[in-house]
Each structure stands twice: as structure tokens, then as C-alpha cells.
């Protein structure tokens, strides 16, 4: 990996802002453009920038395959859990109004939408990072 202090410093500064923007896109998805998928992809793009700037082994040491697998499972579990919770409460799949009516908490559907978007974002981010690791990596520790 080529030593370049400009690239490293700029990426070290840019990565937190990209991740904050990704979280903004995820949370803002209910009321405007964006959503869980786009936010997750932007979050994964910050990891791609880290891979380009610092090299694959440095990033690989901080993010292991087991953590990525668990993140993707947790994301899907949040999404499907809220969806099937609506089924249990007597509504359709992902029908937030049914949960809100059953629990009696006002404005619960907004929180539920944000939770579902966060689950989608986590799952998409983990899947994208896993794909990048498998394709751009040298094939080591591909378990």
C-alpha cells in the first residue's frame, strides 16, 4: 500500500461525516428522500473509503467476518420482528397502525418506521461490506 499522507488525512476526516450523513439518510427516510437501503449503502461506502485509504488488512483487523454476519442477522431480525409483531397484533405484515392501536401509545408508528429503516440499513451495510471484503480481499480468512 502506497504511503500518502494527504489521502490518509482526508479520509480520516471524511469517514465520520459520511457515516453521520448515512445515519441522517436512514432516519430521514420516512419523511423525505432516502431510506434504509440508501443509508446502508452510504455507510458501506465509508468502509470502502477506509479500505482504499488504509488498505484491506488494516480494516480487516477491525471488522471481522463474525461481526458482519451478526450485524446482518440482527438487521433482518429487527425488520422481520416488527413485521411479524404487526401480524401478531392482528394487522397485516408491517402494518404499524395495528401495533399502535394494540399498545395504545400515540405516534408509535413513527418510531417503528425508524426502527425498520435502521434494521434495513444495518443489514444492507453488513451485506455490502461482506461483498466488498470477499471480492476486493485476497481471499484470506474467508470463512
Amino acid at each position, binding site marked *: 500500500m502506497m504511503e500518502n499522507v494527504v489521502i490518509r488525512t482526508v479520509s480520516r476526516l471524511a469517514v465520520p461525516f459520511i457515516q453521520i450523513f448515512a445515519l441522517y439518510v436512514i432516519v430521514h427516510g420516512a419523511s423525505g*428522500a432516502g431510506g434504509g437501503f*440508501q443509508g446502508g449503502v452510504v455507510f458501506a461506502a465509508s468502509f470502502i473509503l477506509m479500505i482504499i485509504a488504509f488498505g484491506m488488512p488494516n480494516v480487516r483487523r477491525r471488522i471481522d467476518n463474525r461481526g458482519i454476519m451478526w450485524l446482518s442477522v440482527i438487521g433482518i431480525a429487527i425488520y422481520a420482528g416488527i413485521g411479524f409483531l404487526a401480524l401478531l397484533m392482528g394487522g397485516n405484515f408491517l402494518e404499524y397502525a395495528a401495533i399502535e392501536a394494540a399498545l395504545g401509545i400515540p405516534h408509535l408508528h413513527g418510531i417503528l418506521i425508524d426502527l425498520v429503516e435502521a434494521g434495513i440499513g444495518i443489514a444492507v451495510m453488513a451485506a455490502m461490506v461482506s461483498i466488498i471484503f470477499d*471480492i476486493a480481499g485476497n481471499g484470506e480468512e474467508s470463512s
Partner: protein
Amino acid sequence: MIWALDFALLLFMIICATAAITVKDLLHATIVLAAYSLIMTVLWAEMNAVDVAFTEATVGAGITTVLFIAAIARTRRSSSD
């Protein structure tokens, strides 16, 4: 919808799409495909499909370009046919 801007964008998009499938070097084709995706983003945003434009910008111009470049780095760069 501005007529002249639409025409220019569509023309450039067709040129980029044609170039992406006719150019021999696969790295050149990937970069031209990213440019095609960028123009497509502007077109979607101009058609008031902001969500689709956002997805096109992140996935089309961002992730797939990196994936293609990574795939090219692991294989041969020029196509044989």
C-alpha cells in the same frame, strides 16, 4: 422539465451506454458506466424521482464501480473478443 437539458442529457447518456459496451478496455468501460450512472441520476432527479436518483447515485455510481474495479483487478483487464 427543460427540453434542451433533457435532450442533451439523453444524448450523452446514449453515447455513454454505447461506449460502455463497445470499448475494449474493461477499466474504461467501468468508468464510462459510472458516467452513465451519473447522468441517469440527474435524469431521475429531474423527473422528480428523488428516491430512485439517490439509489442510482449510491449503488450505480458508487458501489458497482468499486465492485467492477475490484473484479477487474482480480482478472485480466482487456477483453479477448
